[in-house]
């Protein structure tokens, strides 16, 4: 059997013949709509660069991120060190590149922990209503009302500093937002006839929530997660800045900024270079998230 790439017509066909064709067609339409948004594509490029840099760090970094040459300390950006060197003579570019791994690690872990948790709680809350809703939302409110950084601080203070604890701390403050969003989304269709129809077929609540409610909450959650990435990066950087996240000598961007504080006036590059990295990556996520929202959740959902 000859395998050929699916043609555009096959993907856009109004009458798909198999489930697979229908799914691929939908994905294709989404991708094309997204591609029409130059800003979103720019954001995607940044995100992909982050992934590539993180994956290929050992090959891309010109020097070791951890070994420094004290005779070379605090050198300004030059052809030998594109981003200059820090107070221990380490190449900042290499540290930024390896720092991408840490950033990615934090961001992905936080997303994986907080989003599904928030989604589930919100969907259950919105679906059942009544006292279940009140209890769950009360819980959500408690966590929502805590300032993110302070709660993270408290957590890390209790468990000790380190990346893993920073991740847990941030995740704990991130899930309430997703719960709220999922609940709001669920409420918009909770009383719709298609839910009544499924109930009338004898489906259990679990089945309805997992197969009918949650899929409808996914797009807004995904969009929100993407947009939140920037905030997560900044919170992690904040924790790093305070010395509570990644511990030295790990090249976490926030920690790098923190140590560069002392030299900010004369050797600005030590703090600013990782700062640029943070800004660019956050921007990438924001732009992509915006584009994703336009495509997944256009005004006036399809009738």
């Amino acid at each position, binding site marked *: 059997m000859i395998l050929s790439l699916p043609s555009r017509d096959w993907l856009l066909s*109004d*009458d*798909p*013949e*198999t*489930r697979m*064709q*229908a799914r691929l067609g*939908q994905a294709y339409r989404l991708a094309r709509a997204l591609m029409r948004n130059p800003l979103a594509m720019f954001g995607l490029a940044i995100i992909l660069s982050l992934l590539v840099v993180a994956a290929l760090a050992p090959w891309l970094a010109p020097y070791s991120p951890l070994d420094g040459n004290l005779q070379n300390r605090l050198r300004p950006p030059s052809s030998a060190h594109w981003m200059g060197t820090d107070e221990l003579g380490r190449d900042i570019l290499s540290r930024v590149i390896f720092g991408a791994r840490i950033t990615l690690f934090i961001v992905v872990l936080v997303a994986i922990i907080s989003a599904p948790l928030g989604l589930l709680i919100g969907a259950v809350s919105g679906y059942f209503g009544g006292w279940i809703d009140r209890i769950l939302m009360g819980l959500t409110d408690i966590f929502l009302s805590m300032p993110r950084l302070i709660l993270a601080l408290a957590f890390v203070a209790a468990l000790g500093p380190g990346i893993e604890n920073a991740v847990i701390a941030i995740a704990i403050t991130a899930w309430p937002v997703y719960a709220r969003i999922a609940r709001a989304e669920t409420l918009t269709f909770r009383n*719709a*006839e*298609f839910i*009544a*129809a*499924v*109930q*009338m*077929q*004898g*489906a259990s609540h679990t*089945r309805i929530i997992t197969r*009918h409610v949650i*899929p*409808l909450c996914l797009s807004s959650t995904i969009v929100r997660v993407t947009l939140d990435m920037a905030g997560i990066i900044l919170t992690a950087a904040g924790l790093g800045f305070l010395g509570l996240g990644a511990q030295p000598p790990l090249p976490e961007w926030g920690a790098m900024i923190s140590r560069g504080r002392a030299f900010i006036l004369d050797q600005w590059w030590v703090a600013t270079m990782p700062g640029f990295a943070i800004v660019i990556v956050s921007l990438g996520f924001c732009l992509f998230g915006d584009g994703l929202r336009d495509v997944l959740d256009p005004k006036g*959902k*399809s*009738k």
Partner: protein
Amino acid sequence: MIEIENLTVAFGGTPVVHGVSFSVARGESFALVGESGSGKSTILKAIAGQAPDWTGSIRIGGEALRRWRDRAFVRRVQMVFQDPYGSLHPRRSVDDTLSEPLAVHGIVGQDARVLAMLDAVGLSRRFRFRLPHQLSGGQRQRVAIARALMLEPEVLLLDEPTSALDVSVQAEILNLLADLREARGLTYLLVTHDLPIVSFLCDRLGVLRRGRLEEVSEVTLLKSGHLQSDYGTELVTRSAGH
């Protein structure tokens, strides 16, 4: 087949249906008519389990109904909703929607059954993997009817099944409903405000006014233009006039 006795339903605390009693024989097509707010849809919802706050007795095929609908019940009674736009899950294809009831009850042979049902409701097989937004109102309503029939129920509850459809499409759906009833020996309980539909599709009707049953009559009486009660006749006159 359906026996309702002294049914009182409250919605949000306020009683909306007061002591309604009527029965529908097996294979019969019965209509509940009335203005909006008369409680006709509420009665349907109570039977379907969507309005849990009721007293009185509801029996289907001789068995009394309990609060939450169990599996056996849903295989006997199914519902077709009013709004074709709202009654299908927006992210699930026609195939998904039709396979769902089978999956819930662990019925095998989904492929064959789905295809057979598409044929039975006059939907081309090429629509099988389309999403609701790719279908017209009439096509969606056919899917809704197909879905209701997947579990091979004996009773269909129909809540204004054509009021959201274009006139030309309405005729097709009404014909389909008449065909299906004949072919499968179904019992229909239909709610509508449109009296001519009752003349076409039903054998008997009940007139509701503010939650109370004013009369129950044969449709032949309706066709003559004069119902038993004054209110019923007024409804008929208004319908003909407009």
